């Protein structure tokens, strides 16, 4: 017997703000976080705009005093996850070790699944050490590096960049001793982590889980890797209008920074511990792989078969027909080929109903937050169900075929899906509670 699972807390950390109360009103009003890059001079990268976190973000504000020292070994990706977990726990009204109170759950019954990206070293920190190992002609001297040179890096240097350190820090801060994992499948990471938490609770291996994902590509190396994926918009001079999901004038996506943690709980234990309402019930989950040999699966196939398989699998898991879907939060990154694949997948599933089902992407406002993207989309979907309102559609003046619906007939069941770089796809169906 599968147990029912609720989303009971959310903690978005993204360009529009920190925490759902800050992010939601802005997203609902159509605000856009994309602006010229502040983190470094990005003028020669090919893309020079991004949706960075608000200025003044400090992870120290989100950890217990006793844990402040550990923030020194956190890459930006880790900081985002740690802040998001703090926000989500508070939003869920969940007591954990972080607050020093009696925890809501036995720590062994709480799991943690967080998606992460390939974390690049802090370029300034690493290079400050590398430059001390140069030969007279300026070239790198690996003999010097192997000896004295590398001692210019702090002993714990490597631990800042291991992808599982997002989940590691979160499990330590909140004392989560249950099943834990780190999924690294580009944009699909958040959705896959959500799905794994869901299954762990359904099977009874945990009563609650922290799940989601986070990534910052606001680092020269990570940034150029995104440039190399050839998905980014050329509208560097017009950041607010750069990402145009499902619009005929779309020309690419923009790098976002952020992520989110969601608290999932078994319906049974949530109802026992809390008198409040959950955000949404999780009805179904599905995952799939796109095959597109022409691009070595770096892009989805035009047919949208990959995301379509994930959506169908989620519908099957939920025991629903496609007719039950009232609105969709898709990947919708704003690159015409990706958007076409998303639209094709939806057409294959929804048929003619696509003209009446609103499809709303968060990427126009938040950019593509990579491993954090899916978690943000699930967060927004959960909030939309609770508020009985969808975020505003922005930058879609001339919709591509089938992407014209703006108002849902009702808002009971939402589909959220991700079409990831490298071909991994996820889909989830959430229901109003």
């Amino acid at each position: 017997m599968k147990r029912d699972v609720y989303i009971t807390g959310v903690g978005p950390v993204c360009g529009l703000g920190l925490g759902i109360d800050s992010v939601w009103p802005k997203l609902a009003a159509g605000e856009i976080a994309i602006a010229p890059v502040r983190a470094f001079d990005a003028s020669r990268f090919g893309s020079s705009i991004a949706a960075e976190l608000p200025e003044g973000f400090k992870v120290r504000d989100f950890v217990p005093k006793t844990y402040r020292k550990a923030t020194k070994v956190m890459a930006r990706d880790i900081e985002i996850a740690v802040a998001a977990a703090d926000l989500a726990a508070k939003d869920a009204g969940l007591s954990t070790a972080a607050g020093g109170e009696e925890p809501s759950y036995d720590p062994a019954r709480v799991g943690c699944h967080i998606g992460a990206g390939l974390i690049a070293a802090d370029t300034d920190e690493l290079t400050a050490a590398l430059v001390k190992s140069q030969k007279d002609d300026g070239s790198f001297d690996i003999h010097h590096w192997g000896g004295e040179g590398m001692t210019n890096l702090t002993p714990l240097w490597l631990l800042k960049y291991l992808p599982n350190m997002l989940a590691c820090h979160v499990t330590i801060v909140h004392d989560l001793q249950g099943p834990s994992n780190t999924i690294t499948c580009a944009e699909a990471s958040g959705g896959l982590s959500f799905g794994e938490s869901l299954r762990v609770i359904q099977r009874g291996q945990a009563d609650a889980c922290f799940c989601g994902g986070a990534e910052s590509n606001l680092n020269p190396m990570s940034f150029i890797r995104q440039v190399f994926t050839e998905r980014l918009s050329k509208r560097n001079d017009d950041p607010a209008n750069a990402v145009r999901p499902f619009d005929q004038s779309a020309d690419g996506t923009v790098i976002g920074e952020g992520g989110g943690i969601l608290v999932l709980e078994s319906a049974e234990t949530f109802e026992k511990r809390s008198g409040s309402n959950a955000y949404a019930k999780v009805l179904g989950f599905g995952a799939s792989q796109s095959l597109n040999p022409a691009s070595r699966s770096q892009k989805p196939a035009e047919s949208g078969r990959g995301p379509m398989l994930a959506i169908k699998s989620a519908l099957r898991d939920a025991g629903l027909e496609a007719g039950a879907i009232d609105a969709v939060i898709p990947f919708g990154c704003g690159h015409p080929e990706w958007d076409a694949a998303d639209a094709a997948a939806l057409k294959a599933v929804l048929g003619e109903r696509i003209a009446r089902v609103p499809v709303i992407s968060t990427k126009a406002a938040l950019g593509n937050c990579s491993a954090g993207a899916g978690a943000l989309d699930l967060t927004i979907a959960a909030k939309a169900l609770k508020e009985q309102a969808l975020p505003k559609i922005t930058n879609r003046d001339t919709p591509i075929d089938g992407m014209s619906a703006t108002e849902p007939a009702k808002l009971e069941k939402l589909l959220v899906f991700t079409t990831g770089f490298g071909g991994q796809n996820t889909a989830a169906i959430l229901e109003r509670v």
Partner: protein
Amino acid sequence: MSQRIVITGMGWITPLGHDLETVWAALLSGASGVDKTTRFDASTFPTTFCAEVKGYDHNDYVSKKELHEGVGLNTSFALGAAAQAWKMAGLDGFDGLDSSRLGIYLGSGEGSLDFDNYVAANLAGWSADDRAIDGKAWAAQAHSCLKPMVEIEQEPNMPLTHLALEFGAEGPAYNCLTACAASTQAIGEASQILRCGDADVMITGGAHTMIHPLGVTGFNRLTALSNRNDTPQTASRPFSADREGFVMGEGAGILVLETLEHAQARGAAPIAEIAGYGSTADAYRITDIHPDGRGGAQAMRQALEMADTPPSAIDYISAHGTGTKENDSIETKAIRAVFCPDGDIASAPPISSVKSMLGHLIAAAGVCEAIVCALAIRDGRLPPTINYQTPDPALDLDYVPNDARDAAVNTCLSNSFGFGGQNDTLVIKRV
């Protein structure tokens, strides 16, 4: 109602060879895959040796060669290991699979850094006055020297993406990267996906190399590696009193898993069963394992419980056994807590660490140790822990020192513990 999950194919690419039987024979003979580092000039590094995969080309294994040109070493290793497993499972040329129910769950690491060009970009971008990178100068150099394909292929999901292309897998697709526990965790999660009916067949395991200058730098700075530069073959000394660090290895291991029902229906011979899986977090410290082995012991208990197997039924433990002071003593403590609650060490089964021979394959270590368990069951032979010369008085279990031995093996347990307190355990049984 609970489905039985079986292994129907296995393959590995390791420092001791590139096919199942060669590596297994080498492990049983107590061979070492460790030698001087040749991948880069490590002559002045604190550690100048490692266990490299040598003389290997994935083109000898794959059929869609053009789709895998220019892949990273991690993907390259994964392709060779997976092709072996695929063939052994009888899936090469088999057309009875529903591609949307063929999934992949890997625990693979990132590809190796393009170190020279990365360093060139960083040095060119450095502004000595600001003691920071000048983005303009960095980008100019990076655009001229970094290769987009090489960078993209470093993403940790790329081994997964390439295996999917090679074998036409459209089902659930995951990569987890929980440091040294990753591929054990992948096998456990793949078995759960099969159990809950989300797929018919899963390709699982992992691939990794961190044998590049920054990888070795990272572990040398943590003082996690052995520095026995004069005697590389005897450097990896799990459970010995004189152990002083692990030895970096690299490679891949891949399993094909399916439900027993599915295997029988298509006439595939099951090799062994993945009967139990446990996964916990220490939630203790980023640098240290919980001193009592709390999380490790709990992962073992979970796996035994799921397999409905009492500790006394375990015939062999494939240890995480890295050869670091901390891991080996805490792993021993955790095993004692689970197997010797009354303090009687005779209740613990024999334990060995093939890391003494293969080095530590990081994300790919766990799957290779799971393969060892399956082969130990098949042949009734336990691989040794080599380089065990000086017993540690505090580590008093049977570590199968130095020589392989015959044993009646029906049920094994395999441990993997990752940096950051990630603990994963599998119970592997005779079918």
